[in-house]
């Protein structure tokens, strides 16, 4: 059974249709990549799955773990196991990183009927994950993402993912703005999360990240639809040819 099952998803923003009938299935344990040119709807897909309310779903269905994802609020989706690593993580002055993470973790634990975690159990777990991502302890008490560099913000996203242990992790352009060292660290963090009961959806413009996080399937999103799917070799091929050929084919198909 699919963990994520998207059927004919149609989404508009301000009466402008962004996703025009998108289909996608992910099984537990799989890593898929969504690639595509700017404006093709990649980030829209990522945010709709995290239940951002600024988008209007005009058609289609999304089943997550057998439940109707589109009926969920963002916090419900998170508690059910959806995690979005933001392309642009938000700075929240005045809320400490560790406090924020514990609030999130406990909200999810509460939803699942588990006991809340106290600071004594929480902090050692957090420190261990931070070590994995080579994050300095000073980030524990600093405000969420405030004054973090681009690379630090992305590492912080992966840290949250590691702490919250989602069933489905969506990485929205996690590679953008990272130097090669940061990219390796982030990729190692993601790879450590690969497991038979977790699916990962890597949204990216460039093939670079896929050297480090090798996907099982690659999908090319053009103008709101998946135009081509294949194995990891498809990403390499795109690196050579670019998106132009697929875009041209898509235009031809929609005319015809």
């Amino acid at each position: 059974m699919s963990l994520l099952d998207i059927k004919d998803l149609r989404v508009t923003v301000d009466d402008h249709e962004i996703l025009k009938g998108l289909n996608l299935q992910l099984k537990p344990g799989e890593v898929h990549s969504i690639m595509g040119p700017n404006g093709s709807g990649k980030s829209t897909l990522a945010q709709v799955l995290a239940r951002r309310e600024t988008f209007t779903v005009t058609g289609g269905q999304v089943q997550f773990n057998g439940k109707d994802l589109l009926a969920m609020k963002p916090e419900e989706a998170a508690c059910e196991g959806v995690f979005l690593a933001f392309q642009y993580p938000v700075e929240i002055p005045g809320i400490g990183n560790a406090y924020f993470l514990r609030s999130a973790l406990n909200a999810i634990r509460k939803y699942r009927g588990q006991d809340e975690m106290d600071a004594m159990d929480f902090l050692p777990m957090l420190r261990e994950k931070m070590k994995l991502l080579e994050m300095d302890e000073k980030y524990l008490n600093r405000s969420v993402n405030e004054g973090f560099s681009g690379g630090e913000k992305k590492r912080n996203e992966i840290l949250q993912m590691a702490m919250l242990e989602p069933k489905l992790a969506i990485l929205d352009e996690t590679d953008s703005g990272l130097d090669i060292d940061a990219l390796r660290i982030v990729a190692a963090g993601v790879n450590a999360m690969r497991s038979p009961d977790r699916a990962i959806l890597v949204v990216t413009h460039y093939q670079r990240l896929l050297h480090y996080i090798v996907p099982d399937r690659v999908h090319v999103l053009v103008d709101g639809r998946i135009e081509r799917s294949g194995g990891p070799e498809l990403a390499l091929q795109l690196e050579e040819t670019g998106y132009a050929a697929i875009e041209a084919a898509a235009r031809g198909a929609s005319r015809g």
Partner: protein
Amino acid sequence: MATATQAIENYAESFRGFEQSAASHDLLWLRQLRQSGFARFGETGFPTTRDEDWRFTSLAAIAQIPFRLARNGHGPLSRNQIDCFRIPGVACQLVFVDGRFSPELSSSGQLPEGVEVASLAAQIARDPGAIEPHLGRHLDLQRDPFCALNTAFLEDGAYVRIRKGVVLGEPIHLLFVSAAHDAPTVCHPRNLIVAEENSQATILEEYVSTGSGATLCNTATELVAGDHAVVSHYMIEREHNQACNISTLRIQQGRSADVSSHSVLAGGALVRNNVHPVLAGEGGECLINGLFIGGGRQHLDNYMLVEHARPHCASRQFYNGILGGHAHGVFHGRIIVHKDAQKTDARQTNRNLLLSDTAQIDTKPQLEIYADDVKCTHGATIGQIDEEALFYLRSRGVDLASARRLLLLAFAGECLDRMKPGPVRVHIEKLIHDSLAQIAHVSHDVPLAPQEAALGEPR
């Protein structure tokens, strides 16, 4: 409905009765002080919104309600009724009911030598010579009719004196209780705080009410900080939703004195908080930190007048406002840099969050600079809760109500962070949690402790 003249006549009648029987009315200087106060109020009456300093705050309600002077009229308050207002870890707690000192309700504690804390009325009777050089010397009767009125009806309040070089670690808690009455009542507490050279102290003025009914508390504090004195002053307003509170804190700072004023306005119907420091010695520093949290139809007006009179002084103003419902907030930050005050460094920031379409904020910086080598900056922002941050928190599993509360707490926390750690800060943190839970219509995720529940007056 009373006209402006009727309002003045109402107070004039009250004043004639008061001045004959007021404590220490036989002291000439005190009698003259009271008379000068009333004479000034008689000339001006209550300000109107045509007055620039009162542009955003209508006093029509205060002028129209026939407040009666509260004099021994309150029913007995028991210690039980006050217990919920006690703060652990303070040096002492003086309780004033309708402006009058209540020895039965107060806890004097063990004060170190060199610290005098007493009722002003008792101190005037005991040692008028120690009071006369300070009382009424700093408050500006000409500028503010409420200060004039307070001076006219000056009788009791708190007297605090920290002698030269004495450091008091624990805070002094001055609790002003508006008691329940059948008819609208007014009181005019007057406080005098003298922190002598090289002394150090923390003073909390807190305004609360028991019961309900229209009340007007018109309070004034003169705080004299001697050379190199370090004083933290806190003002908390959390009366019920029919209470009017007009307060003035007039600070006179000596050379290299370091004074911080922290105001938290959370309760009351119509509230005006004036903070007026005069940096009268070289190298003085002043922090004016404020937070106002309003909902319902509350009107919370923050008026600052910072006067730089001598060179090399620094002042910092930070005010954060959170307003929901139909609440109306005002921030008026006036900075005057006098001709001699070269190398002044004055900064002012006012940030506001509006939680509803019907909440309103008026923010007005006003800089008057007569020196030529100074640094003055000001800035104001008005916004809503950051939707991006809200979504970010929710995407991590935090529900909408908790996410809103977290963001509001973070915003209010900026003011909290400027307060020194200690019992007062802990107390204010609790108050903020409580106020924000009410204002944002979000629930506590833990049940209220009985004490906290008792603090939460309906607003």
